[in-house]
């Protein structure tokens, strides 16, 4: 099993996706990215690819290749990409030399802000707004990480192969944030947002509960008994999703 490959998949396709919400939820980042109209392509040799598209104040992160990227960042290997995410390596700039200012100055501000929201401390979590953003990012990262694990991690693939067909909704009550996982015969798709009639649901009483459970500070079994976590529907799906969730910290520390 190639651990760096799995980490590369998770970083590129589960972590970066939070940029989409960052430019909406964080006023400073919204202002920073408002005028950006460009795309950044990540290419990893023998690994995943993804791109980020900035357009009219919105950000879209997708797997695969963008048609005409403004910038292409190349990585020699999944390990190279992982090192970059750890701040220990730089990518090779294949295209976008005219965007060096963006790459050197502006884009790092955005990723640093995302990192700020993804690395909570007890003090930061005491802030209501921070808690809301961190919980949203945690749910999004979890959902998209599960999708990636289902693609590249052998144990996760085995677990996914027997999950009941349908949607599992992960939602903080009453109004979100939420994300969904679509299972179909071993394949997994992840999306942000709500779903009206899921096959199963993990419903968290509030942001704090969701945050504590997803960060493994509160055990889900106790939370279910107290009604803080309410599983509904096909419980076998929830059981499997829990196993998949447990695998994320093996690769995203």
């Amino acid at each position: 099993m190639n651990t760096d490959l799995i980490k590369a998949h998770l970083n590129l396709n589960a972590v970066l996706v939070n940029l989409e919400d960052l430019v909406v939820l964080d006023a400073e980042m919204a202002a920073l990215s408002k005028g950006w109209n460009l795309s950044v392509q990540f290419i990893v040799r023998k690994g995943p690819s993804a791109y980020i598209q900035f357009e009219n104040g919105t950000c879209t992160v997708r797997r695969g290749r963008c048609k005409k990227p403004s910038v292409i960042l190349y990585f020699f290997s999944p390990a190279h990409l992982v090192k970059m995410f750890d701040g220990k390596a730089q990518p090779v700039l294949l295209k976008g030399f005219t965007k060096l200012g963006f790459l050197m100055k502006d884009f790092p501000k955005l990723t640093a802000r995302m990192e700020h929201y993804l690395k909570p401390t007890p003090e930061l979590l005491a802030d209501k707004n921070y808690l809301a953003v961190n919980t949203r990012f945690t749910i999004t990262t979890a959902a998209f990480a599960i999708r990636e694990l289902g693609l590249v991690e052998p144990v996760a693939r085995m677990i996914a192969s027997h999950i009941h067909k349908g949607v599992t909704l992960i939602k903080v009550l009453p109004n979100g944030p939420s994300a969904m996982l679509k299972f179909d015969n071993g394949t997994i798709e992840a999306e942000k947002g709500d779903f009206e009639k899921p096959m199963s649901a993990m419903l968290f009483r509030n942001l704090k509960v969701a945050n504590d459970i997803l960060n493994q500070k509160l055990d889900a079994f106790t939370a279910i008994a107290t009604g803080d976590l309410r599983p509904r529907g096909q419980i076998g799906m929830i059981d499997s999703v829990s196993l998949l969730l447990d695998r994320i910290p093996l690769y995203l520390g």
Partner: protein
Amino acid sequence: MKTYTYKKSVALFKRAAKVIPCGIYGHLSPAPLVPATDYPFYASRAKGPRFWDVDGNEFIDYMCAYGPMVLGYNHPKVDAAAQKQLKSGNCITSPAPIMVELAEYIVDLISIADWAFFAKNGGDVTSYAIMTARAATGRKKIVLVHGGYHGVAPWAQAPGHPGVLDEDQSTILRVEWNDFEGLERLVSAHPGQIAGFLATPYHHPTFFDSVMPAPGYWSKVEALCRKNGIVLIIDDVRCGFRLDMRGSNEYFGFKPDLACYCKAIANGYPISALVGTEALKTAAARVFYTGSYWFSAVPMAASLAALKELRRIDGPALMLARGKKLLDGLVNIARSHGYTLRVSGAASMPSAYIADDESLMLHQDWCAECTKRGVFLTSHHNWFVSTAHTDAEIKKTWNVADEAFRVVRKKYGA
């Protein structure tokens, strides 16, 4: 009907959560009860087919302690035998004579048994069974059925569970239930390497319908195992003595080499047994396997009394008949509300799901509404019927089920 509340259960759980991992762990955890807040967490006492929770709520129990209760809680004959043995001694430096008496009785009772080995839990004897198969064959690999439950030893858990290593699964192969061709392919792909095939007599996975063996399945499996020197093991822990006193293999017409028993074997007293054929007795003897309480005499006395009573009243036939009566009524009541209650498995331990909502949310609500009205039903696991469930319990169950269907109909609409 009045619905229950669980104030004392909740208070006790909060205390428990401080000093016990997840408050209540394992199969009695509230986690699979949906919604958990509609269920009691702690029982204060039990009698016959009923139990009372710490809030004083009374329940007709269709989980039967997840199987061990088979003659009714606090059965007088079983408890008297246990009490009598307790006066003589329980956990002593040497085994009590009751151990020999029980083994002789089981060898006489269970069709394939030439010997019996006692432990405490089902998982003790499923592990011992695969060790015995390995000792007998000199092979490593064990074939299990996907979704089958054989306890919580690392080899028996599904891959990916916390605390389970990939290495724990390295000698475990899995095949789908009823997939004889799949089993044949596995045997061909691992020639001379498979020590045993372990499965339940019929498939009763958690969260899903039970599935009976396809016609000819077991006879073909038996022949394949014989031909390839594979030890055929049945995990009769859950079905045992609820289908046939001679072993559930007799119900389905085949002969395993080893069979595992627990649950109904002693009506709630802690004991399990592995039984086997003469051919495997030496291998079983070579495996060193023991536990501090495995020679406790009280559960052995209880087991002997329970098995004698079950045999006297033909417990399996009684439970199958009462289960059928209960389920026929529930299916009709469901139909009268426009629902389909899909029943599978043996009537003495049926799996029942409302088929009108694939997500099972409606089914979960119905089970919870029944429970809040005094009929304890889980929505994720097969139920159990005991010989103590009489027409009075069945009639009350129908009444409660009827009202619960009305409640869910109102919630979910036509």
